[in-house]
């Protein structure tokens, strides 16, 4: 018996009646690929100036009903294809207007749709701030095991010890706090205790694309969005049933020096993933399971990870939709904090040889998008994120545990007032429960209100202005409020050219870990700081984006961020035992510029990205360079597609980090911790896509770090040597 929609969904997130009976005509038709006239399932159709749209079905057919009579512009888009906008489409009462559209393939997304910049779908060209996109194909071709691996090639982003640094906003905070906010399908995805980004909870195979928004974004996203936002968007559920199987295996090359060898066995890793998705009427379900077994190239750095992911979506008659995600992660492994010394770079100190970490994390999130009227769209989303992890060291009796639960509920309205004004406003509430051996028992949360207006002053000029007020208590002894304004201008003097300027204020409330950690790990002791205050920043950016015909796009931006009360880890050895404490110590300024070029010459057979970011991260308090911020970051990659083969390569250059935790070195805690070099990493890949009558088989062979360049991103943590990876995947 088929389940009725309202029986099978929890009602928690449905705050508003989704359906309003509307009258008028309809717009329908078929969207096909120009190359082979096949139907483009999943293509998006949006009536501009209205909160109305739909997606094309399996054969590319679409239909929007109950459209009031009038003259409209309708936009058609799909990832991988050039956006097409049809103007002057007449809709009459009781009649159907048929619009058939053929989209042209465009590997370089000059008209790509993004959702993070203003909490609604927009063309990338209409966004007044810097944003980069990495899609599933790029992640898949690189055989990225984790999301942070994939992010290593996003312009302006670099990773230090698994923590994300966007344009010099962050250094390394030892797993406590993040100046980058992570979203999962638009929902905040930050742990309640440490406030860090747990990328491993999201199976890489379920990612459709990653949007990286650069610069302070607290005016829309609140705390943590001080340096930027990473929005991980999961794959949509396809119209036709689909089964996906992937298996991969990797082999680490032998260490470069005999002194570094610590095992006579070859070190391998392997993983498997299987997922299935299907639709029954308006209900779509996707379920996936994956695991990763990593022997690791370093001693006591092994990892076993298991992910389960479930996504459900129910579509309603007038473009409303309810989406729910559930994810479960179980992982355990050794813990490699730092090397014994550079002569034994792949071995931890003796006392850390048995350290291990175990984590169980699960979340359930939901989002309801409803059309309230022709010009009002309401989105309500929420998450419960449970995070349980603990570690065991030789120094402690038993396991040190931390359990936290984060609840976040947000409602966002988008009101298309007229052709000139688009209002976005919302309310967000958050509550966290933390019970940890390290941090104690804490309850707290926050409440926020925000609003902004996108004012289309003329066809050439758009002004966006808004603000968000946050009241927060978690991580603070004294709860406090913060108003964060923002303003942005977008000027489009010619087709394909946009000039942008933006200003935003950011803030970040310290995480529970930063404020309340009491611990003794290895030969360090951490003490709480109950006087910790929120960090604040002002960010400014000017930029220009230029499409280069059908070849690609060029983008350049200059930016500056001023920080107050920046929280850094301080080390005090005056009492004899080195004491670690997070403190508001720094007034800082980060200036820089970024250029990026995306090109796909030869009809899209070649796809290249080149980007360069210069950052001057100045600690104004000490007149020094901020820790763990490289000045120069250069990425280049190229992929050539000669069907069915594809091959390509990446090059990553990161200049030598000028300042690190030298206190740890000077006190003799981390031997040779000052040893670091510029980073040069080269990867190669080759693969083939084979169509076996309904089953697409993809085989990929990667060689990462081809030249076996030995480097560290984090103090005393040697990066992987040359690695050979073979993967096989089938889509049925």
């Amino acid at each position, binding site marked *: 018996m088929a389940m009725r929609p309202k029986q099978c969904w929890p009602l928690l997130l449905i705050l508003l009646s989704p359906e309003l009976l509307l009258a008028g005509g309809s717009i329908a038709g078929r969207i096909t690929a120009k190359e082979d006239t096949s139907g483009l399932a999943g293509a998006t159709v949006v009536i501009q100036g209205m909160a109305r749209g739909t997606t094309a079905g399996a054969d590319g057919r679409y239909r929007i009903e109950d459209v009031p009579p009038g003259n409209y512009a309708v936009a058609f888009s799909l990832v991988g294809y050039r956006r097409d906008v049809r103007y002057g489409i007449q809709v009459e009462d009781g009649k159907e207007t048929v619009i058939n559209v053929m989209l042209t393939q465009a590997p370089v997304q000059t008209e790509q749709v993004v959702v993070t910049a203003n909490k609604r779908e927009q063309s990338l060209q209409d966004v007044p701030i810097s944003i980069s996109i990495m899609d599933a194909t790029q992640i898949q071709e690189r055989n990225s095991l984790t999301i942070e691996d994939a992010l290593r090639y996003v312009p302006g982003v670099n990773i230090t010890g698994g923590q994300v640094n966007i344009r010099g906003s962050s250094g390394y905070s030892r797993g406590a706090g993040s100046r980058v906010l992570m979203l999962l399908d638009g929902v905040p995805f930050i742990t309640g205790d440490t406030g860090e980004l747990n990328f491993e909870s999201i199976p890489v195979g379920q990612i459709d694309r990653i949007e990286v928004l650069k610069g302070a974004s607290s005016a829309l996203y609140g705390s943590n969005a001080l340096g930027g936002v990473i929005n991980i968007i999961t794959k949509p559920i396809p119209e036709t049933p689909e089964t996906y199987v992937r298996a991969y295996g990797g082999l680490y090359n032998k260490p*470069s020096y005999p002194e570094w060898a610590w095992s006579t066995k070859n070190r391998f890793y392997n993983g498997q993933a299987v997922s299935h998705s299907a639709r029954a009427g308006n209900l779509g379900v996707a379920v996936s399971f994956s695991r990763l077994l990593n022997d690791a190239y370093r001693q006591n750095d092994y990892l076993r990870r298991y992910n389960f992911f479930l996504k459900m979506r129910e579509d309603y008659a007038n473009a409303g939709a309810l989406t729910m995600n559930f994810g479960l992660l179980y992982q355990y492994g050794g813990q490699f904090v730092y090397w014994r010394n*550079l002569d034994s770079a792949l071995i931890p100190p003796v006392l850390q040889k048995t350290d291990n970490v175990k984590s169980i994390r699960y979340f359930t999130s939901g989002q309801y998008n409803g059309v309230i009227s022709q010009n009002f769209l309401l989105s309500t989303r929420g998450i419960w994120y449970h995070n349980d992890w603990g570690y065991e060291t030789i120094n402690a009796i038993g396991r040190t545990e931390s359990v936290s639960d984060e609840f976040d509920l947000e409602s966002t309205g988008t009101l298309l007032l007229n052709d000139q004004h688009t209002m976005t406003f919302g309310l967000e509430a958050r509550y966290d429960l933390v019970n940890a051996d390290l941090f104690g028992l804490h309850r707290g949360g926050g409440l926020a209100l925000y609003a902004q207006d996108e004012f289309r002053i003329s066809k050439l000029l758009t002004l966006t202005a808004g603000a968000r007020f946050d009241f927060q208590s978690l991580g603070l002894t004294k709860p406090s409020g913060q108003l964060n304004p923002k303003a942005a201008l977008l000027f489009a003097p010619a087709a394909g050219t946009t000039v942008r300027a933006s200003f935003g204020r950011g803030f970040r409330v310290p995480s529970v870990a930063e404020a309340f950690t009491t611990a003794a790990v290895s030969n360090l002791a951490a003490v709480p700081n109950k006087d910790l205050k929120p960090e604040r920043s002002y960010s400014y950016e000017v930029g220009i984006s230029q499409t280069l015909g059908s070849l690609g796009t060029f983008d350049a931006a200059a930016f500056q961020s001023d920080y107050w009360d920046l929280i850094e880890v301080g080390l005090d050895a005056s009492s004899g035992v080195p004491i670690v404490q997070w403190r508001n110590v720094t007034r800082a300024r980060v200036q820089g510029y970024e250029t990026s070029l995306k090109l796909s010459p030869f009809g899209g057979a070649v796809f290249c990205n080149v980007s360069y970011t210069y950052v001057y991260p100045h600690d104004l308090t000490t007149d020094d360079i901020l820790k763990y911020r490289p000045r120069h970051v250069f990425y280049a990659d190229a992929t050539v597609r000669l069907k069915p083969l594809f091959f390509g390569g990446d090059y990553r250059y990161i200049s030598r980090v000028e300042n690190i935790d030298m206190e740890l070195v000077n006190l003799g805690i981390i031997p*040779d911790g000052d040893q670091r070099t510029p980073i*040069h990493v080269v990867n190669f890949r080759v693969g083939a896509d084979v169509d076996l009558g309904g089953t697409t088989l993809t085989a990929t062979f990667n060689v990462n770090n081809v030249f*076996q360049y030995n480097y560290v991103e984090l103090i005393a943590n040697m990066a992987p040597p040359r690695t050979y990876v073979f993967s096989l995947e089938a889509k049925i």
Partner: protein
Amino acid sequence: MARLASHSKRWLARALFVAAAAAFVGGCNEGLGPIYEETGFEGVIHYSNWPPLDQVWELRLLVFDNVPSDSSSLLQLLLASVTDPGHIVLYPALGTPGLPKLVDATSYKLTTSGSTLQVRRYNYVVLAWRYGPNLFADWRPAGVFTYNQTTLEPAPVNVRNRRLLENIDIFVDFTRLPPKPWQ
């Protein structure tokens, strides 16, 4: 637009060439490797305005973890270092001839393998000069390791594991001696 496209192709070709060259050059360098260094520090002691030879009985380098601030005699401090090695290091060791006299400069090297030096921060590196016959009392500093030759404020030396710190130089002017922190 065609010119723009042509220009961008040239730009791309150059950028990829630069990237490939940098990747090759960077790749040829293997990056980090084991360190085959001793642990300690070395430098040169420069002398000027020597006093008469009969006033130069002995010269030794003394390395203190903290600047002596009490009224102990140097001998007491040295005896204390025997029971707690590493806090004060004497070079050359007692029982061996001291540093050369009446020379313009002399080099030295102090390592953990050749002395009681330890991996730690030493805040006071001083050339001790015995100016008279009393082995227990006639000592005073002749020069210190400093970053400021005007104030002669002692500068620290951080001894790190398997690092031979260089240029720990001391400039001695016998007509302008640093303060004496011991009795």
